[in-house]
């Protein structure tokens, strides 16, 4: 055989074609896999928290990027308050919750009201109190309602100008490093889940709760603690939860949070209908009274003034029982020492 043999040339050519074609196939396959075009049942890749990896969401800086010096110290203090609110702002917290219970992943998770999306929105007008709110005003609202400051040792939220606001705000602004200002960002708030046409059902909600929520939050919704009594899963209703003035007490808000974040690590597991049903069930239970209910004011008046046209049970009756009257006042402020002196 010599090189003039046409067969050899063809074989070489064929080998090149074969190898090139094979490589192209591998490349195409890899590309399809990486771009997520291949369904999970073929690729064997679980679709976990796809939303979180969605590149369209803003990426806040990582903890390793917290600077040294006074700025970094304040950012860290703010983060500690955010994660462990009952301890680091304990004087003003009248329940067992922390900011990070609803603002997941230390306020970074999209559709869990991430702080990087909220920061650039303030100051702004809020219908809730009919005035221009600074971020400090907004966080004061969190303490008033979500942290139920009325039952805290101080009995009120941190006063204006308190260091707690400074530390929290520098933490928020640091999370929003490089984020656009006054722009509605993807992943902001809890998102929305359209109210199902047939409304919602407490009975179905109870079943959804037992099946999906009780393993962590307890069959009685009171959360669970570890061996030292440290709260691991937050209470969803009752005296140790957020009060009737909190945003999470509205069924639409709770439904959106649940749909996009719960069960933890399985966002999107529940259907829209299930999310509304279980949110309605959770928000049908009694919790600390709305702090805007001043003495002499009836629940009906508070409903007409502050809860008009909202999706909530406040001021309505379930099985003939008025909802919104509040849980009993604690014997002493939450977190007050048992043994003075």
């Amino acid at each position, binding site marked *: 055989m010599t090189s003039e043999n046409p067969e050899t040339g063809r074989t070489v050519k*064929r080998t090149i*074609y*074969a*190898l090139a*074609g*094979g*490589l*192209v*196939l*591998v490349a195409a*396959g890899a590309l399809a896999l990486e771009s997520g075009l291949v369904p999970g049942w073929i690729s064997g890749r*679980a679709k*976990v*928290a796809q939303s*979180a*990896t969605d590149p369209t969401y803003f990426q806040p800086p990582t*903890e390793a990027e917290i600077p040294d010096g006074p700025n970094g110290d304040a950012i*860290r203090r703010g983060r*500690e308050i955010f994660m*462990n609110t*009952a*301890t*680091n702002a*304990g004087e003003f*917290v009248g329940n067992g919750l922390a900011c990070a219970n609803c603002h*997941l*992943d*230390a306020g*970074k*998770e999209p559709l869990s009201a991430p702080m990087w999306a909220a920061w650039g929105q303030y100051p702004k007008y809020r219908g809730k109190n009919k005035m221009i709110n600074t971020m400090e005003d907004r966080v004061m609202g969190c303490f008033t309602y979500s942290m139920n400051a009325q039952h805290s040792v101080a009995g009120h939220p941190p006063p204006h100008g308190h260091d707690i606001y400074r530390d929290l705000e520098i933490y928020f602004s640091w999370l929003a490093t490089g984020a656009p200002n006054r722009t509605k960002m993807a992943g902001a708030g809890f998102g929305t889940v359209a109210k199902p046409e047939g409304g919602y059902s407490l009975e179905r909600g109870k079943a959804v709760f037992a099946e*999906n929520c009780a*393993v*962590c939050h307890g069959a009685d919704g009171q959360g*669970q*603690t*570890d*061996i*030292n*009594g*440290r*709260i*691991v*899963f937050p209470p969803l209703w009752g005296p140790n939860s957020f009060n009737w003035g909190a945003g999470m007490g509205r069924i639409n808000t709770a439904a959106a949070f649940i749909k996009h974040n719960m*069960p*933890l*690590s*399985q966002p999107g597991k529940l259907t829209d209908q299930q999310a509304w049903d279980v949110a309605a069930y959770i928000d049908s239970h009694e919790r600390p009274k709305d702090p805007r209910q001043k003495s002499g004011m009836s629940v009906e008046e508070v409903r007409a003034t502050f809860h008009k046209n909202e999706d909530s049970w406040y001021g309505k009756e379930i099985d003939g029982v008025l909802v919104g009257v509040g849980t009993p006042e604690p014997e002493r402020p939450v*977190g007050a*020492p*048992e*043994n*003075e*002196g």
Partner: protein
Amino acid sequence: MTRKPTSSDHIVDEKFEPWERNGRMPLPVVWVAVALAIWGTGTLLTTSGGAPETAVEAAVQQDRPVDAPDSGAALFAANCATCHQPNGSGVRLAVPPLRGSEFPAQGPELVANVLLRGIDGPIRVDGHDYDGHMPSFSAAFGDAEIAELASYVAATFGDRDDGVDTATVADLRARAVGQGTWSGGEALAAAYPGLPPQPAFSSASVTPVSADVSALIFEGRDDVWACASCHGDLGQGVENTPRLSGLSADYIAKQLRDFQTGTRANEHMSFVAKGLTEADIAGLGAYYAGLSVPSTAAPILGGDLKRGETLALVGDWDLGVPACFSCHGPSGFGVAPNFPALSAQQAPYTASQLAAWAGGHRANSPLSLMDQISKGLSTDDRRAVADYLASLPAVPAGSTGAVAKEGDGHDL
């Protein structure tokens, strides 16, 4: 062959041969074959790394360095801050603060004593009563590390700069042998009269383990071999056999029932579990839940401990993985009944269970929580987190817990 070719044979050959000789495998088929070969080789190369795990284990186990201890500040940040918080504030109504506490002000010797023995019982700090459960760090730290840490804590939170040296700690350690944990603040106040009055410790009635259950654990029964023969005399586990002591009774019972029904698959355990009655299961659960045993686990898989710590404390939300501790408790002590203690669990066991969930071989997690989370973790991540959890101190027994000491064996 002997047959002579006939003309008709020749004609067939002529028609047939050119087709066979020049006919080729269609190119697309070759492409697919080549692509499969490349993909196969690639997969082999990328996945073979994790296979010789036991070899890695053995190698790593050999050379655990016994260097100079880390600084007290570093030890505090890595081992104390998850409960007492980086600023020593503790956790309201749950974990006593160090800042403003009367205890560190008693000096570094008290701190060393608490680190060595741990606390199980009520304790009053700065006017608040706590249901104190602090693990013993005696297995986790050497004398030099305890000395560094105790000196740091006393100086930082108690304004006591006198420090404690390694020899004193060694002496304290020798005297602590067989003493068990401190029975709350009362016992500490008896040893350190400078402390303010402490709540009384009432030793909860410990239900003794029944003869039946004791026999099951240490001798076995009929076909059922003894629990201790694999899980160790103290339920401490070894390698791929899990630590049982400190797991909640309900969790242990659920696993045994799942082995019985086949919901959880393991040849040995389903065989054993099928020989158990409901009374056996309840007795075993209560026994192991109440057992307080120092950790025998160690990070032996060569995992990245820093990465493991991040996964345990913060999670990796981009992978859909929340912090381990967001469900298993802030110190990995577990949350009864569904979330088992993770701290001091044998690293090979933790890693193998994560792999089993990811591969669909274990499927008894509520809401399939662990199945989904494990799938988000790479092999390296599983090793990292298993190693980190193995480096943590064992869960303290509840106040009702029996305290088992090395060598107690049958006399429990």
